[in-house]
Structures are given as C-alpha cells and as structure tokens.
C-alpha cells in the first residue's frame, strides 16, 4: 500500500475523497496506485477480481492530476477509483461475463456507462467478478463463476451474494470506492444486502445497457453499489440518460437533487409486518424492527400493505429462461455451454430453448396486469419497505435453490415477492444496510414508482444520517505473504 494514503480513505465516500483530492492531501496517482494495490492484493482472496487495470488507471490518474493542477473539475467522480462488473465491455481488454466459454472474449468498444464515467474523470481500476452469465436462468451453488464463489468480507465462509458478487465484495472490503453491477432479478440488491453496502437498482430504461451482456432484454438494468445512498445518487447522476445504442432507454435524465425532497410528512411508506415478524430469519428480526422504527422516526406515514396476488415466481422464471436461452442459443447449440461451472445453469439454458411461445407470451401478458396492479398500489403509497433479503448470507456450500430453514411458511405473503415484482414492473429499488444477524449484514429495501429515484435516495440519505450501519467495516483477513 502507498504510505501516503491513510486506511480510512479506502472506506471514505465519494464526496470525502473528492474534497481531499481538491485540497491536494494526496494526488490522484497516489490514490489510484493505493487502490490498485489493495484490489490486486485482497481482490483474489475474496474471488472478487476478474481483471486488474493498473496501467490504464494510473495513466488516467495522471490526466486527472493535470486537470486538478489547472483547477479543471469535471464533477464529483473526478479522480475517484471504481470497479465494473465483468459483463461490461471495456475496449481491448477481456470481458468474460464470469463464464469459461467467454474467457478470451475481447470487445473493441466501451460500454456506454463506462464511457460516461470515464468522461467524468472516474478511474476504472478493475473488472469485478460475477456469477457466470449473471446467473442465467438459475444456478444452484455460489461456485457458479469462472473466478470461484464470491467470498463475503464479513466472513469468507459465507457467500457474497450474486450475480454482482465482485461489486459487493469490492465495495465492502474497501477495494474500490464504488462499483457498477447489474440486476435482472436481485443481482444488485442481493450482494448489496449480504455485503453490507448500499445498492441502487434504477428504473428500467433509465441507464443504458449498451455494451453490457444481455441476459433478459426486458428485465436487465445497470446500477451502482456504493458506501451510501448519497454516493449512489452521484453515480446515477453520471450514468443515467438516453442512449441511441440502447433502444430500451426511456429518454430520461437523472439529476441528484436531495435538496428538493418532498416534506417527508407527506410521504406514505407501505410495509407488511408479516415480512419482518414472521418471514424474516429470527436472528434478523431485532434489527429489522429497529429499522422500521428508524424509518418511522423520519416523519413519514407508515401504513400496512401487501402485494397484489400474482404468480411472480413462475412469470419471472419463464421470461428470464426464454430470453436467456434465446440469447445464448449459439452457446447451447455449439456444446460449449457444458463448460459452465454450474450443472443447474447448464440444464436451465438447454431446457429454456424448449419453452413454448404460448408460455412466454402468457407470462408477458400476466406481467401487464402485474404492472397495472403495482401502479394501483403505488397510487396511494409512495414507497414500499421490505427486507432486502429475509436472511443473511448463506454458507458458500449451501444449495441456493433449497430452503435454508424448516420454519413453517406464514399464511400471508406480505411483500416477500418484492424482488421479482419490482423487477417485472421495472421499478427502482434502494438497498440500505440496517444491522446484523449472526454477525452478517442485513438490509432493507425501498421500492418506488418508476423514475422516483430521488425520493428513494433522499429517504436513504436521511436513514443513513440516523444510523451508522453503512459505515461499519469488516475485519479483513490478513493478505497472503
């Protein structure tokens, strides 16, 4: 590690580092070299690093130092080191999608989100590990990755969550200041919750996916994993907006503006007590209960609610399987699909080619009604509040498609299907660390109307002004000699 960079900097917010760069407490090159060394040293220990980018990062940092010397500031991300999930194309460097069949894949262009961040002066220090093919239709084990299972910095015998595993790990362990991930159904919220960092899933269409691996055209979103809600706002500000290269972009921009937040007394937050009191892991319930009270103390109106009844699981499963198998048909037909690490993923991709059109269309027609149902629910309620995940991270050897406990299933569903429901309806979500269960992080999620990111981020900012869960750091194991 570079001696001139104090340890606290590895866990500092974007704004804090930006101020220190401007104050010339250290140079962008010193900062970048220190982060690169840490990422190269600790990243492999947690199976978080796909590709280090030290040389390009240091070169970019020299340019930043030149800018700072001339007092040219390109924005809050100027000079800040970040990492990107390895499903984003970065020209002339390997982009593996976390999967052995694509280990040698190189693109000749940059993903739009990377172009935007780099234009804003951000420093890309590494590509981060991920679950192979972002999870494909499904997978059984945490080991479903070219780089091995994502190991949780809070306890490496536990999983990091996926599919943006390296992104969650790298932020939690202070290997980058923030990271980009992607979500089709839970791939930002899950690693954010399990690793104790803040994750934002933007509204479908707010952020361009050009240059990102496609898993499901109608569900894929790209978003940040950061130290705080405020940092998520700063990153989203930079990456959001229309892109002719991605026909799904909605043509909307995003301006992070917490100063224009509504009076929280006017904000109605819906939650289902059964989620926290019966569905949640018993060890997580005390801190979940405190989180509800903290949200209440913000002055919002808390009301009880539940999701409209729909077969969220079968619908999202059918859509992802159908779209993923179509996307990866060449991989399946070539036989190279058998090189994947997870047998369930291999079988799921093969079998997905046989899903009849009538089932895909039926799922998409039910999805129309689901969107309407959620729109109706969110006519009266501004934000939905639920656990991000009902339990902390499982052990890395545990099958992910089997229940982790034999507790009886509660009668009411509450908001427990909020991850598939929110993704099917394209709604934004923010995951906020809210405590610990058995020594592992837990989190709540806030879900709002399409393009209501500013409200979610403002609530998140106020929640984090009253709590310090997002500032907790894992005691990392010592690097190898």
């Amino acid at each position, binding site marked *: 590690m570079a001696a001139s960079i104090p340890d606290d900097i590895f866990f500092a917010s974007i704004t804090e580092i930006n101020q220190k760069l401007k104050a010339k407490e250290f140079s962008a090159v010193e900062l970048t070299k220190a982060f690169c060394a840490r990422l190269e040293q600790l990243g492999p220990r947690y199976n978080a690093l796909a590709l280090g980018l030290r040389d390009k990062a240091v070169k970019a940092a020299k340019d930043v130092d030149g800018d700072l010397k001339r007092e040219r500031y390109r924005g809050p991300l100027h000079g800040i080191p970040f990492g990107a999930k390895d499903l984003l194309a970065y020209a002339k460097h390997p982009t593996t999608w976390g999967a052995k069949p694509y280990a040698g894949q190189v693109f000749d262009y940059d993903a739009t989100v990377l172009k935007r961040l780099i234009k804003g002066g951000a420093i890309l220090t590494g590509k981060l590990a991920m679950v192979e093919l972002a999870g494909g239709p499904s997978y059984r084990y945490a080991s479903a990755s070219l780089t091995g299972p994502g190991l949780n910095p809070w306890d490496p015998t536990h999983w990091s969550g996926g599919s943006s595993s390296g992104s969650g790990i790298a932020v939690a362990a202070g290997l980058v200041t923030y990271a980009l991930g992607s979500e089709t159904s839970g791939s930002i919220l899950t690693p954010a919750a399990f690793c104790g960092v803040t994750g934002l899933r933007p509204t479908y269409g707010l952020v361009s996916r050009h240059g990102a691996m496609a898993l499901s055209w109608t569900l894929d979103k790209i978003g940040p994993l950061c130290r705080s809600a405020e940092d998520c706002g700063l990153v989203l500000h930079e990456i959001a907006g229309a892109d002719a290269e991605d*026909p799904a972009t909605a043509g909307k921009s995003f301006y992070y503006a917490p100063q224009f937040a509504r009076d929280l007394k006017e904000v109605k937050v819906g939650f289902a007590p059964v989620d926290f009191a019966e569905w949640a892991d018993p060890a997580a319930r005390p801190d979940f209960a405190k989180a509800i009270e903290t949200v209440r103390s913000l002055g919002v109106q808390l009301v009880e609610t539940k999701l409209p*009844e729909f*077969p969220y699981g*079968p619908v999202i499963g059918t859509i992802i399987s159908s779209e993923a198998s179509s996307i990866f048909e060449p991989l399946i037909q070539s036989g190279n699909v058998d090189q994947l690490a997870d047998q369930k993923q291999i079988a799921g991709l*093969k*079998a997905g080619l046989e899903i009849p059109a009538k089932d895909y269309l039926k799922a998409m*027609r039910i999805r129309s009604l689901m969107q309407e*149902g959620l729109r109706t629910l969110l006519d009266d309620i501004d934000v939905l509040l639920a656990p991000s995940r009902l339990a902390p991270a499982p052990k890395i050897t545990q*099958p992910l498609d089997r229940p982790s406990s034999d507790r009886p299933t509660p009668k009411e569903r509450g908001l427990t299907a909020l991850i598939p429901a929110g993704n099917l309806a394209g709604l934004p979500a923010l995951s906020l660390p809210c405590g610990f269960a058995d020594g592992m992080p837990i989190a709540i999620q806030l879900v709002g109307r399409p393009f209501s990111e500013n409200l979610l981020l403002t609530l998140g900012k106020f929640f984090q002004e009253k709590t310090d869960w997002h500032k907790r750091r894992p005691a990392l194991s010592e690097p190898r000699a």
Partner: protein
Amino acid sequence: MSRQPETRNQKPETKLTRRALVAGLSTSAALLAQAPSVPLPSNPDEELKAVKDAIQQTSQQLAKFDLPMSTEPAVHFRA
C-alpha cells in the same frame, strides 16, 4: 396493454376495467408461486430432467391463470 376493442362475443356485464380486474384476482395465485421441494439431482441427465419437469410445472401454473382476451403482452415495438 389493452388497446383492442371489445369482441362481439363478450357480454356487456363482463367488461372490467384493468384496475378492477387486478383488485379481484384470486388469492390462489399465491399457491401457484410456491416451488415444490425435490431432492438434488446427482448427474447432468437428472439435472436436465429436473429442470424440464420444473418448466412443465410452471407452464401448468401459468395455464391456470385466467386472462381477458384483450390483455396484450408487456412488450413494445416501435417502428
């Protein structure tokens, strides 16, 4: 999206707004979403069979969900 005109075969009293339809959907949908519990497959052939069986069960669950003819899929094509 529901841009289709009502068909001649529809009775006037069956005309529902999408909002009313959503509000009145059966709670049995909750049961449809529950995954069955089966032992872990031990080889690739068993795995493929298990996935195909699951897809078949999902198909049956989707088939049980009644939809009005006018409900269009949640996809958009822009010329």
